């Protein structure tokens, strides 16, 4: 029996879809069977980031409305045998499905996959409620900006009310270490201290992420980029391994790396 993890943020455009695609890819890379579920009905793009857009025949709303079987709507990834996508409908409205239906659907997927990653739309309305309905765990994505952290806090408050969801964990995305160092953006410690939840990982702001999203090849596939390694580490932590927050997730010099290792602040 697998576990369902919702990836959410409150604020739009902070990297939910990118995070879902990359963590999913990294988990598949580690040999797990994974299903990505896009609940952003009307604004789907997980399929684009995964490069699977052309293969869509049925979608989540079709399954919910009984137009097809769940298996018919699942799209197999190009690269991994064990990675699948359940796309969102592009033409329908967010109200086209109800939380209860998503819950049933996710329960069915849990029989089949190790991990179900649910990409949540921005906001706290119907789409959010749908995405959270079937989840056991939650990942909250934020960028190091006050408005994004504020919305993450709001979402964590809402998630705390969902008794079926474990305490969410945090991914701080699009970190620019030079701005963090100069105090121009919030630093990770400050964000974690406000949100008071466990940190699952930090991801640098990396051109490679944008390029790979555009080409439908998630960054996590390439072993080289900093972001890729960050996503792979997040996948390992999700699986219960304790991987220290390390240099390659950030753009730190060798000296601060050593300091970090020694438990000193960089």
């Amino acid at each position, binding site marked *: 029996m697998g576990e369902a993890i919702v990836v959410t943020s409150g604020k739009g455009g902070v990297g939910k879809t990118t995070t879902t695609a990359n963590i999913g890819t990294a988990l598949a890379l580690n040999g797990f069977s994974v299903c990505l579920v896009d609940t952003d009905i009307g604004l789907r793009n997980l399929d684009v980031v995964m490069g699977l857009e052309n293969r869509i025949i049925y979608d989540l709303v079709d399954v919910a409305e009984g137009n097809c079987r769940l298996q018919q709507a699942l799209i197999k990834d190009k690269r991994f045998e064990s990675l699948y996508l359940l796309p969102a409908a592009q033409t329908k409205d967010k109200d086209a499905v109800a939380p209860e239906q998503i819950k049933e659907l996710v329960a069915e997927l849990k029989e089949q996959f190790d991990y179900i990653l649910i990409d949540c739309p921005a906001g706290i309305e119907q789409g959010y409620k749908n995405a959270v309905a079937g989840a056991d765990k939650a990942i909250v994505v934020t960028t190091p900006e006050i408005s994004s952290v*504020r919305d993450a*806090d*709001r979402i964590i*408050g809402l998630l705390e009310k969902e008794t079926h969801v474990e305490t969410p964990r945090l991914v701080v995305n699009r970190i620019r270490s030079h701005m963090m160092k100069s105090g121009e953006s919030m630093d990770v410690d400050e964000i974690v201290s406000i949100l*008071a939840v466990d940190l699952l990982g930090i991801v640098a702001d990396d051109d490679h992420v944008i390029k790979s999203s555009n080409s439908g090849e998630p960054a996590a596939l390439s072993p080289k980029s900093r972001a890729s390694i960050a996503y792979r580490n997040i996948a390992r932590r999700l699986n219960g391994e304790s991987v220290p927050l390390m240099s390659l997730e950030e753009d730190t010099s060798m000296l601060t790396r050593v300091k970090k290792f020694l438990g000193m602040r960089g």
Partner: protein
Amino acid sequence: MAQVRSYVTLKGTKQGLQLLLDDESPFRTLLEQMEKQLNDQKGKLISAKDERLQVMVDAGRRYLNEHDRKELKELLETTFPLDVTEIRSDVVSRKEADALVRKKQMVRMARVIRSGQVLELEGDVILIGDINPGAVLKTTGSIYVLGSLKGVAHAGTDGDVRAVISASFMDPSQLRIAHVVRQPPENEEWRGMFECAYVNDEGSLELERAQKLGVLRPELAGEE
């Protein structure tokens, strides 16, 4: 001859005139008899300077609801040259008693109050955790935060200016005590460790070291 039952007793005290009411007869009887007996003693109800007399009414062990209180006050003030300053009773309803208890209670909670959340409570609150930016905590009593206060805290919501707000780390976006509001000054650090906010004698909200609370609010000192 049977002694006449006294439904109303006039008593002069340091605080002024008191009317002690009989608490065993039915309320209707009381009103009738009180009016009659007061009429007989009208002479006592006139002040030297020809002003209306201020009286405090003590209903003893009689329960009076809102309506009864209004009726009693009206009768006294329209029929006699009296101003009723207060109607006291030894008895409160269970509902009123519960409300009183709630206002006197100490609420303890361990959690983070997050952006968008508004908590409205009664009594004093000890919060083990934070009030985050964008969050609001309101209560009728005082607020003590064992953690960071970064959002909005409103103490003494029923108008109690003696209420205080104290925090291990004070960096609020706004503080309110009763009707007094204060925001952090622009471009100025208004944060500190172990601070408390209170309303001073001039009626404005001021911040002090938490250690000063015992002096500013001796009722909190906790020692006789």
